């Protein structure tokens, strides 16, 4: 079965600043210290940073091969406006991603992300990425301090509408240095209404604000969700019930497979995260082959027009499913 991972990142501190990683590590320190263990941020950061040394995507490509993932979508979250310790400018980050695209032909697509507060320069960069670099979508990271329906984002959505490309929006929790108050999926509603020809993907919709995400997917033709982050539930639920539940609700034409690599690299490799889904009693086991195909590759292919003829309208997709 073909598999496309719609949610990955380059594992490098060049694109994810130390303050972001440290914030996440502090949560782990809190949990471990509560158990009476002598843990420090410095010690855990060393372990975390060992998993952030893949600037060219080589290790990711290897893991993709071992897992049977044919293509991954690399997402650039623009932290450069919100966090002041980014190693690269957003232009440099875009350039690096372009290098990775060229280094691994056919293995990746890239969604560029630009903080809307960068204004016209940011918009120009994003447009250039679509026209010259071959990037295929827009990544929005609201916890940096803006709503996904902020009017400053509308020119970006207009470009996506013009080029028929999707927008992937982070929802739910993130590193504690950022703002959680703008991570609700309902904040996308205005943008989805104003731009009905743009498809919006709610990242982590199988584990954060699940009911809200399912409702939006069910009733807004242009909203989808990805299941990345389901790995956070595997510790207490190795059978991935969170995913099993999502794919039992009649919205499989809107569900996209994703892993959020490298966030869960301490927990396992890409092939380890597919096992709870693909095994005989896995979360996708009760789906028909067609529905598995939708979740694992066809939905994202349709959004990106990869290997498909003319893109189906949302209404036609709904009809196909009846």
């Amino acid at each position, binding site marked *: 079965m073909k598999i496309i991972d719609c949610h990955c990142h380059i594992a490098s501190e060049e694109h994810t600043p130390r303050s972001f990683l440290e914030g996440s590590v502090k949560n782990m320190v809190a949990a471990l210290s509560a158990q009476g*263990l002598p843990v420090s941020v410095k010690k855990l950061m060393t372990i975390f940073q060992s998993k952030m040394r893949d600037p060219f995507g080589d290790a990711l490509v290897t893991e993709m091969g071992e897992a049977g993932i044919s293509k991954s979508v690399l997402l650039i979250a623009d932290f450069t406006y919100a966090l002041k310790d980014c190693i690269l400018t957003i232009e440099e980050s875009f350039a690096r991603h372009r290098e990775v695209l060229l280094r691994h032909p056919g293995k990746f697509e890239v969604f560029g992300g630009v903080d809307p507060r960068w204004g016209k320069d940011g918009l120009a960069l994003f447009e250039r990425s679509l026209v010259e670099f071959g990037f295929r979508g827009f990544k929005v990271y609201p916890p940096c301090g803006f709503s996904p329906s902020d009017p400053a984002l509308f020119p970006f959505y207009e470009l996506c509408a013009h080029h028929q490309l999707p927008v992937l929006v982070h929802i739910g929790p993130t590193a504690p240095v950022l703002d959680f108050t703008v991570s609700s999926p309902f904040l996308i509603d205005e943008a989805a209404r104003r731009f009905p020809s743009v498809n919006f993907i709610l990242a982590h919709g199988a584990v954060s604000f699940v009911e809200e995400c399912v409702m939006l997917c069910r009733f807004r033709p242009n909203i989808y969700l990805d299941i990345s982050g389901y790995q956070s539930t595997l*510790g207490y639920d190795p059978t991935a019930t969170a995913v099993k539940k999502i794919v039992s609700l009649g919205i499989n034409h809107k569900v996209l497979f994703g892993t959020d690599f490298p966030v869960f690299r301490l927990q*396992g490799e890409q092939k380890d995260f597919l096992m709870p889904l693909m095994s005989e009693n896995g979360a996708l086991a009760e789906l028909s082959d067609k529905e598995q195909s939708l979740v694992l590759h066809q939905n994202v292919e349709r959004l990106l027009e990869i290997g498909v003829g003319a893109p189906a309208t949302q209404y036609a997709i709904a009809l196909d499913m009846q």
Partner: protein
Amino acid sequence: MEIAAELDEKIINIVSQGVSGRFKKTKITPETHLQKELGLDSIGILAMVFRFEELFSIDIAQLGVDINVAKLKTVSDVIQAARDILNKALLAKQA
């Protein structure tokens, strides 16, 4: 053999300290899968590593050992990693 068995028992004890909830009654053997059968996530596995360090008074980072936590799938993997680390610690001490 006796020392090895004693080490295995200590490691299994360390592993069991991190198990909670419905996994608590699982009988732990070398073949037991850390995540699937014991519900250990990355925090649980890290806790295990730090308990090991505490028990054996070792700083794994100072030994120059790079533990790939993601590769620790079963209790047997943990026991093997523990043996490797303790051997390295012994060599470092003798050097």
